[in-house]
């Protein structure tokens, strides 16, 4: 079972590299979404491995609520591109 987790860590390195190298803000947001989901699923796998229900509950909450911050940040960044037209004329 440890091999599954090692493979997930390796898969986690892919979006981290992408977020580091790609200068486009939306590519970084995509990598952020990928990492947020991957880490929550890894928390669930660890909770199953250790047999800990408390960690599993926290993993479920992070998986379901964690993307709300991503959406709020995406709205703020999206309004950046439209901003110069807001107060014109």
């Amino acid at each position, binding site marked *: 079972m440890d091999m599954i987790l090692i493979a997930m860590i390796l898969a986690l390195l892919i979006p981290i590299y992408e977020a*580091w190298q790609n200068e486009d803000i939306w590519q970084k947001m995509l990598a952020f979404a990928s990492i947020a989901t991957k880490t929550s699923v890894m928390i669930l796998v660890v909770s199953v491995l250790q047999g800990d229900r408390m960690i599993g509950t926290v993993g479920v909450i992070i998986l379901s609520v964690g993307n709300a911050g991503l959406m709020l940040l995406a709205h703020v960044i999206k309004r950046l591109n439209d901003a*110069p037209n807001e107060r014109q004329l």
Partner: protein
Amino acid sequence: MEDSYIYAIVALLPLAAVMLTVQVNPYNALVIRGILGGVAALVYAVLGAADVALTEALVGTMLAITLYAVAVRSSLIMRVGVLKDECKDEWINEHRDECKHELIQADDLHPFAQLITHLSMIAKKYHLRLELIPYGDPQSLQQALMEKEVHITCIPNSCVERSHENEQLRPPDATPEYHTVTRIRRLYDILQTELTSLTPSSIPSPPPSPPSPITGVTYVMVQDLGEKH
């Protein structure tokens, strides 16, 4: 707790932290901060601290990033006061499209569009956001600068001395066509360096005539009134 994957997971945390510290653009840094929060929540959960992981995910990732995004968005802004008759919708949209496609030919543009293109390039370089605020006449523009509604103002030189009818009588290329006044010392230094030194590098072919600065820059000291922010 002596599983080997724990070391690999914990090693992700300094990796994300180093990635965060080398970011230059504040918005990119915010996104990387979210990645750091996700990795930190994973590390805390793996080490058995479920409550800390939940707090990190909810407060550290969601709330802190949102608050910082609003703060960065409202503070990294350069408000430019312009005259209303200069500021036509058509060419601003045109200019925005050209700016997006990196197809700026300096000679083809209206001088005001050229000026705004220069300003937006400078703002992009320093991660600022450019906001044009139109005003009716030069007097209200000057008053807006004094009341700290705008950071810099751009006025055509023809408006400073006389009315628009005499614009054709002026000898061309004698003086810069626009006059830029700023009340912030740092903006003055940046504009002085960027506008007078060289043409922006994204213009592919330099014009045959030596590029003259399109605007003169002046710094004014504004008294702090106290009641304004």
